[in-house]
């Protein structure tokens, strides 16, 4: 009888502790998943966040916003954990001061942008599609150019990021990505 009570007691305590720890873990993780957390570092606040302000995902007709984690952290739990583990690398670079000035950030911008583009490409722009679902797009409600480009893009197996680069932040020097869309270099 006593043994059984101990067993039930342990089970109950375990359940309560489990709920507390699991809940606490997720609560803490969600705290790191807010815009406020992201811009608590000046690297984000003064560069990418400053550029994001006023753009379509921050300021628009209906007031619906997509903030940092909406695009940069997956919604699904397992992918979210994976991304959070990767983020430890960002802590290392924060300590090392890899992009602690505007100049250092600009120098690294192409490399950093390419990381995001690559990830987006690999996941078929999963984070975009949390809101922008191809199947729910009404082409007839779109402008003349968007209607054609979206249908052609879909047929060609393209993903959002293939065309929609530099939507929320400034683009890096694109001379390597598209040499036809940059300023001519004067011959020596």
């Amino acid at each position, binding site marked *: 009888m006593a043994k059984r009570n101990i067993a039930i007691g342990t089970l109950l305590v375990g359940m309560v502790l489990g709920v507390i720890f699991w809940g606490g873990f997720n609560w803490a993780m969600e705290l790191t998943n807010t815009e406020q957390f992201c811009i608590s570092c000046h690297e984000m606040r003064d560069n990418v966040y400053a550029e994001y302000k006023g753009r379509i995902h921050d300021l628009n007709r209906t007031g619906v916003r997509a903030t940092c984690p909406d695009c940069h952290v997956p919604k699904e739990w397992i992918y979210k954990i994976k991304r959070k583990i990767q983020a430890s690398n960002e802590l290392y670079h924060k300590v090392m001061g890899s992009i602690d000035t505007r100049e250092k950030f600009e120098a690294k911008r192409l490399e950093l942008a390419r990381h995001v583009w690559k990830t987006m490409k690999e996941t078929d722009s999963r984070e975009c599609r949390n809101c922008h679902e191809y199947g729910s797009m009404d082409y007839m409600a779109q402008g*003349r150019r968007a209607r054609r480009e979206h249908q052609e893009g879909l047929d060609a197996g393209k993903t959002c990021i293939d065309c929609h680069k*530099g939507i929320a932040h400034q*683009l890096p020097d694109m001379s390597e990505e*598209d*040499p*036809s869309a940059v300023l*001519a270099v004067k011959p020596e």
Partner: protein
Amino acid sequence: MKNQTAKKPLLAALGLCALLLGQSALAVEIQSLRGENAIDETTEVPEVKRYNKDGQPLPRNYVLQPPLIPHKIDGYEVTIKHNKCLSCHSWKNYRRHHATKISQTHFQSRDGVVLANVSARRYFCLQCHVPQTNALPLVDNTFEPVESVSSW
């Protein structure tokens, strides 16, 4: 002789009247584009203009007019690092995006050297090419292009 000297002040007075009348007439006729409001009065807020929806290329009004932009350009950036317009309108990209290609005159530097890409003096598209809104003309215009060189 006496009559003539008597007329002079009369003429001067008439002239002065005409001048004053003319001035007041002018004051009514000419007004700034912001209307008749005194500078310290609050003016009525003009209606917000909307950019036209994406459409077909717009006709030119005269020869060598920089073509107008027949679509929205919200958020398109032209910086030293990238030119959003050229991501569709460059020679490399225009076919894929069914866009009008940039004129090759834009590749020439001010010294007449033809460059491999858009020259700095023609790089800032919006200096000449502009999108259109639903705004009506502020002033009447009777301009007509020379027929022999009009294509529309």
